[in-house]
């Protein structure tokens, strides 16, 4: 459970989950939506995978990410966003779009 809280405490990871809630996306598509380096994005994906909130599948040359949020985890995501968890330390999402 603590891994879920850790994953949801970061605004970038929350934004990744919100994007994946719309539809499955490739790692490239997700990275393009943020103004952060690929290794940083990769680290975020690892945290999300370890928390069991996303699943990755290789399709040809790209890796597709799909969301795996339970309803309660989804509600937690909403609370974390409303409370602005992790944003107080000046850690913005670095989103480009």
């Amino acid at each position, binding site marked *: 459970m603590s891994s879920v809280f850790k994953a949801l405490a970061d605004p970038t990871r929350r934004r990744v989950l919100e994007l994946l*809630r*719309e*539809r*499955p996306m490739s790692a490239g598509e997700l990275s393009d939506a943020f103004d952060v380096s690929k290794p940083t994005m990769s680290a975020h994906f690892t945290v999300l995978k370890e928390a*069991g909130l996303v*699943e*990755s*599948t*290789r*399709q*040809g040359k790209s*890796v*597709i990410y*799909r*969301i*795996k*949020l*339970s*309803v*309660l985890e*989804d509600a937690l995501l909403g609370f974390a966003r409303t409370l602005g968890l992790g944003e107080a330390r000046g850690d913005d999402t670095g989103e480009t779009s």
Partner: protein
Amino acid sequence: MTAIHAGRSPLPPLSAVMATAALAAVMVVQEPEGVLVWALAGVILPVAWLLLEQIAFAGELSRERLEARDRVRLAVTIAGVMLALPLALTAIFTSGVVTASDSVEQRALGAAFGLGIFIYGNWSTKAPVDLEARNAARDQANARYLGVCFVLAGLGNALAWLFAPMAWAPWIAGAVLALPAIAILIRVTRSRANP
């Protein structure tokens, strides 16, 4: 297509299956006159589990088959929990360890049923959407909608059984289940009308 697939552990469904079988065995001892019902409750899930694991999903599996197996394992876990909860309560009440009036027993079993629906709804959305689906985004949205409906229905049902006046509790609990069921039906009908 190569797979990066950790796979869902077989332990949760196996535990749920074993718990159901064990509780059904306890009930056979406690209430031998209902042996057929308890035997059916105790045997159906282990048999289904064995057939799935040893026949349907045996051997080397493709990514799609691994994902299908994971979805089935999640469904078996949830089915096990939904069977084990009322079985455990029935076993407790019939053992005489806990003495309760008929209305308390009815409330507890009703609340356990609601809790089962809540658990199912909550975990049902954990199954990742099928990438080969024609409209994965819509399937994903529908799955989330269904999950939320089940969670609200289960929670409302359990609360109705726990707190509503006994004369009204079955009616309120039923209505609380019916409303999300209608909402799901409308959503599914609309979804099929616009493929």
